[in-house]
């Protein structure tokens, strides 16, 4: 079975419920969390998560739309990108 990994980036002001909100969507879409980190990007709170998908019926567009919706509620910016873009860009 094909496994896809996605990097989920949350950028914005740290508030209560961000992790809960994001992980709930991941769970709804059967996205397994394999890594979670917090850091600062130019003094802005940033959370990085790596999620793994094994479900063949996973529709990326729906997942991204749901994440955008949650992001709007929490007033943060959420991006979902395939891991390859980071691997290709920085590693030979």
């Amino acid at each position, binding site marked *: 079975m094909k496994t896809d990994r996605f990097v989920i*980036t949350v950028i914005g002001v740290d508030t209560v419920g961000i992790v809960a909100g994001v992980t709930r969507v991941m769970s709804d879409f059967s996205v397994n969390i394999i890594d979670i980190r917090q*850091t600062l990007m130019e003094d802005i709170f940033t959370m*990085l998560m790596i999620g793994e998908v094994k479900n063949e019926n996973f529709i990326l567009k729906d997942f991204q739309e749901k994440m955008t919706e949650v992001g709007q509620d929490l007033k943060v910016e959420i991006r979902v990108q395939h891991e*390859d*873009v*980071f691997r290709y*860009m*920085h590693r030979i």
Partner: protein
Amino acid sequence: MYLTSEEILETIEMVRMENLDIRTVTMGISLRDCSHPDIDIFNQNIYEKIVGKAENLVSTAEAVEDLYGIPIINKRISVTPVAIAAEACQSPDFVSVAQTLDKAAKEVGVNFIGGFSALVQKGMTNGDRRLIESIPEALAKTERVCSSINLASSKAGINMDAVALMGDVIKKAAKLTADADSIGCAKLVVFANAPDDNPFMAGAFHGVGEAECVINAGVSGPGVVNSAVRRLKNPSLGEISEEIKKTAFKITRMGEMAAREVSQRLGVEFGVVDISLAPTPAVGDSVAEILEAMGLERCGTHGTTAALALLNDAVKKGGAMASSSVGGLSGAFIPVSEDAGMIRAVNDGALSLEKLEAMTCVCSVGLDMIAVPGDTSASTISAIIADEMAIGVINKKTTAVRIIPAAGKKVGDSVEFGGLLGAAPVMNVSAFSSEEFIKRGGRIPAPIQSLTN
């Protein structure tokens, strides 16, 4: 950890703050099997072929955009030079072909279709002549069609008859689109040594040595390079070059990956990735500002050519390391109207047409998106083209001219195209005549390949 936070954040920042994008994914489609003496049947053939090949281009590119979170700004099509594909048609002009291309572009949802083109570096066939004479009307009657003519090459020299003809054609195109700031001329470019696989408009066409259908990508990122250079603390020029190389490498890797994904999903051969710093009117997304970041007060002052040479070379080196399929133009573009820093330099009196010409000796294209007074004579335009062709032919590089003699405008006015084409201040041209020189016609012979001083 197989991905570091720094790597992830660097990529995110490039897209969020520094306008990193894939500027265009361009599908090249051969029209050579569409020939027919009856132009109506020919038009039917090309329409069906283009729509058939490209029907999923836009949706596929959008899906890849979502997958990687990297914007693909434009989806476009290039076709076999129409002068070749339509040569057999028994018709006095090719305007209806341009209209068919326009219709096909609208049907599949691409914003430009390139290839209303002819390759006449040594001479013109009847088809070439009919195509060139159709250009002004074709550009006035269509919205998305781009036209390009190759007038010179290092192997053939410069076709001065065609150079003279293009001066008239550009003037006519300006006149026929006078009510829209002569936008027809923004969709028309003349070349020396035109590349067959260029994905960027207005000069994209599907060269005669190309496959049936290919995907070429144009990757950009002046904003990313600008930020990278500005982050360095008091760097030497060697360090600047190193930083640009690394940045170009990353941008190219990203572009190639996305373009390969698009081509794989479409089942179409992957062609090239063209790593060109193509500015946009957005703040910071400017080639002029990169040159200024190196220590020039304004783009266009003394030292600009040297700075641009460094930039262009470093971009090529980074790109060539990142991908074995680098092609097209690959370097830095210096279009005036599309670059806020260039516009400012012209308005401040720092950048002149003459300096731009010198800069084209070391960058990847040429005099691009330059507005000149509407009363500039056809022979002066031809002479500007001839100078630029000479630079390309002698230096064995691509050069181009996309010039807009803006109808009714004078120096100090500006033209407004909107969108990616931006706005251009009208620049001064020499008041002295070149008419007799241009009238002579004939061919400037190909240059000697030795004694290279």
